[in-house]
């Protein structure tokens, strides 16, 4: 098995050899999923869990958009509206986007670095199984007396401490569990990447998805404890009469925001760096041309990660900081546009003079580049502090971060699912159904979020259950878009199930332009990815 493995023929032999070598398959029934330590099973659970959370968070978004379809209070009381916006944000950030990326990492990291499994398989099981309980607790509080979290996903004190519903203690506990899960997940990813790469795969030969996830994992390690600290201080303020955030006792509500955003801004990049990695695989594959500037892409990701630690107070320009502080955070924020620009220019140069085809993953990747860049533009506008005073906490901000998170992070996840679907299942999804899904999503996302730029500029605050009459038209359009987008994700479920059930068998390398060790494995990939280290060749990794 020491031969170079990069043809379908050899890959098939390899899989046979593996079973001949006394390898075992998965257990049967529920025990397989409860006790599994297999990276593919855990990756699958992460992905299905995140999809379930995505649907729940999506239903909450549709409840919000139904209420905002017209001025006046139609269906909801304001206190329930606040619970819906809060839980929508929390569930989408911590329950949908982040676990989806961890699921992709579980599936792909061992296959891309040439390892049999993750470095710490039992911890892998634990880090997943914490999540359903964490979100179970959080969602359950919605049905408790006084309701669930209603203070926005940023849970600013003292609204989230002195003035919070009783259930906030459960919320704090749930956040602690999510943090523990994320920390374990990132330790596992770092340990796997640093210790289990196939011989010959030096750091600067690692696939881009591996690079982005390695950096993301370090961001998680750095900031999740900060979040844990913030919620612990809340807990003490609520139950033990401390005054970290209580001005009446000498505390400082603004300190909460500094701590929160010191976590929160790197968190934003945690949700986008792996997306950069995914798109950096898909565009070269369908342009049939290698990534234009591998080295500069790596350095750009590293610079963005570094900058993400020194820009946090741009979320707080209106909080009342000294002029010098405002200027520092304005300049550092504007600076992020430079490495982000480098990435966009690189993707376009990769496409330039390629030989492009437009299968579903490529469509989602191109939409990612265009719409994420638009989110970047509005981000640059928000960095201009005097103008930010007018944008801050309006729908302009809502439009901005949904552009980077929905057609940004989410589209990259969907693109990744279509791209690696044949490797995971051994089947091809239906290309025509995939394209329908793409166009529905693309139209839906823009109809939903583009008008929000306008309502924001016209002065509509965010997180309001009702609004003045001049905002009525844009809100109606936005609500219609939200329903188009929401239902097109049910169609996504159908496309995936249809592919699993009746897709055509996939070859080992279904995309001729795709490179990477994972494509040297047969489709579907064997239960234990590489039991013998593969030989790393320039044909498969960056040379």
């Amino acid at each position, binding site marked *: 098995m020491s031969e170079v493995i990069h043809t379908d023929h050899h890959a098939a032999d390899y899989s046979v050899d593996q079973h001949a070598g006394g390898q075992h398959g998965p257990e049967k029934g529920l025990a397989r999923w409860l006790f599994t330590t297999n990276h593919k099973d855990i990756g699958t659970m992460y992905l299905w869990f995140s999809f379930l959370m995505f649907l729940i968070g999506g239903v909450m978004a549709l409840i919000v958009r139904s209420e905002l379809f017209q*001025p*006046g*209070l139609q269906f909801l009381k*304001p*206190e329930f509206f606040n619970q819906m916006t809060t839980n929508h944000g929390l569930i989408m950030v911590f329950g949908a986007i982040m676990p989806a990326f961890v699921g992709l990492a579980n599936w792909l990291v061992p296959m891309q670095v040439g390892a049999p499994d993750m470095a710490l398989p039992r911890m892998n099981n634990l880090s997943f199984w914490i999540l359903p309980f964490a979100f179970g607790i959080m969602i359950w509080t919605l049905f408790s*007396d*006084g309701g669930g979290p209603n*203070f*926005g996903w940023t849970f600013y004190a*003292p*609204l989230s401490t*002195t*003035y919070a519903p*009783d259930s906030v203690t459960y919320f704090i506990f749930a956040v602690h569990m999510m943090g523990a899960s994320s920390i374990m997940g990132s330790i596992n990813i770092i340990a796997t990447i640093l210790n289990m790469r196939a011989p010959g795969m030096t750091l600067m030969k690692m696939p881009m998805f591996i690079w982005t996830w390695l950096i993301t994992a370090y961001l998680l390690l750095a900031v999740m404890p900060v979040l844990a600290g913030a919620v612990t201080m809340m807990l003490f303020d*609520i139950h033990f009469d401390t005054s970290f955030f209580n001005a*009446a006792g000498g505390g*400082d*509500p*603004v300190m909460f925001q500094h701590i929160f955003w010191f976590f929160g801004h790197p968190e934003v990049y945690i949700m986008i760096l792996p997306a950069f990695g995914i798109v950096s695989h898909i565009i070269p594959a369908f342009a*049939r041309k290698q990534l234009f*500037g591998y080295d*500069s892409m790596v350095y750009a990701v590293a610079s963005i990660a570094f900058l993400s630690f020194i820009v946090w107070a741009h979320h707080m320009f*209106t*909080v*009342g900081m000294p002029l010098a502080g405002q*200027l520092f955070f*304005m300049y550092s924020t*504007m600076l992020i546009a430079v490495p982000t*620009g*480098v990435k*966009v*220019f690189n993707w*376009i140069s990769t*496409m*330039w*003079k*390629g*030989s*492009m085809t437009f299968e579903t993953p490529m469509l989602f990747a*191109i939409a990612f*580049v265009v719409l994420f*860049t638009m989110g970047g*533009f*509005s981000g640059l*506008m928000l960095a*201009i*502090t*005097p103008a930010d*005073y*007018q944008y801050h*906490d309006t729908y302009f901000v809502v439009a901005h971060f949904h552009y980077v998170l929905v057609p940004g992070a989410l589209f990259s996840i969907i693109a990744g699912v279509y791209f690696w679907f044949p490797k995971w299942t051994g089947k091809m999804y239906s290309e025509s159904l995939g394209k329908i899904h793409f166009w529905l999503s693309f139209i839906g996302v823009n109809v939903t979020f583009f008008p929000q730029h*306008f309502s924001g*500029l*016209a002065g509509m*605050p965010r*997180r309001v259950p*009702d*609004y*003045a*009459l001049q905002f009525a038209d844009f809100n109606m359009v936005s609500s219609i878009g939200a329903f188009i987008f929401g239902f097109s994700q049910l169609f996504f479920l159908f496309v995936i199930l249809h592919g699993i059930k009746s897709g055509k068998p996939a070859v080992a390398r279904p995309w001729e332009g795709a490179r990477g060790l994972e494509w040297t494995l047969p489709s579907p990939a064997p239960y234990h990815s590489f039991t013998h280290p593969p030989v790393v060749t320039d044909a498969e990794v960056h040379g």
Partner: protein
Amino acid sequence: MKQVGTFASVLGALLLVSRSYADELNMRVGVTDISRQVYDLHMVIFWICVVIGAIVFGVMFWSIVNHRRSAGHEAAQFHESTRLEIAWTVVPTLILIIMAIPATQVLIAMYDTGGEDMNVEVRGYQWKWEYKYLDDNFNQTFSFFSALTTPQDEIQNRAAKGEFYLLEVDNRLRIPANRKVRFLVTSEDVIHAWWVPDFGIKRDAVPGMLNELWTIVPEPGIYRGQCTELCGKDHGFMPIVVEVMEEEAFDAWYDEQVKLAAIRREAISQVLTTDELMHEGEQVYSRFCMSCHQVNGQGIPPAFPSLVDTAVTTGARDDHIRLILDGVAGSAMQAFGKQLDARQVAAVVQYERHAWGNNAGDVTQPADVVNLMAGQYRDL
């Protein structure tokens, strides 16, 4: 010639339509020097983004159309170009520096809070604003609350919505034109944010912190804004309305308010009939209590308890008064001693003890409140 005229008028009409649309589509230019500078910054950065976007996406779509495999394009295999990579790092950096210069200038101008002609303290409460006109002479100061007046019928879709739906208040903040007004922004409970888009100013109202803002408005008029920081249940229902008055009219109004404040102080020591107390109590209740305890006194348990036939409204009266004055720590029940004067507290206690079928059978006068909490009630 006639055709040219028609063409010109059609063009003019189109321009007018697009302009009126532009007001809804774009940031408001506003009425102050600062708001215009902010608008200009917004437009500069917007056009920079548009131009960069047009170039970048233009190149990309040209490539998508021309470098397709279905168009027979073979993939080239070039990669990496140090020169190109330096260019696309340096050029954006230069653009950003060019952009940062005017942004810095405007920001410095916005921070110039000195040399004010008058000071107004803006204090956020769940869910209303208090405006206090500050003066070195205590007898020259006065304050009032400003809360939403849009009727529930309009919010609940039982009546047609008015022109200023959700953007109308009982007492407007009044300031004079052409004078530099400094606002000291703070909060009594959670964080709020005070924003008047037409002035180009917004600042968070943070409990325990005093933030500064200033404006000089050249044009008299009525300007509307909203709270822009999530502050709980009725965050969407605490608008800001500022009436900018001609200087002389403002001065006359100010003197009037100072006199009224003196009369109010006097009124605290009066004895009222039960009818007067009930009538005034109902008004106070609807302004300060109803958003939580509801019009029927039933509240929204458990966050906002019922007042109907409960220990508070049927038990010891002095406890009832203390509860209103001090609030309940760790709950949404605020310390209304800081918001209501003795007469208002007396009236609302009387009302709560005798409305919705409650019948405590006692009479509460302003003096009872003053005696109970001597020195702790609100002076104004």
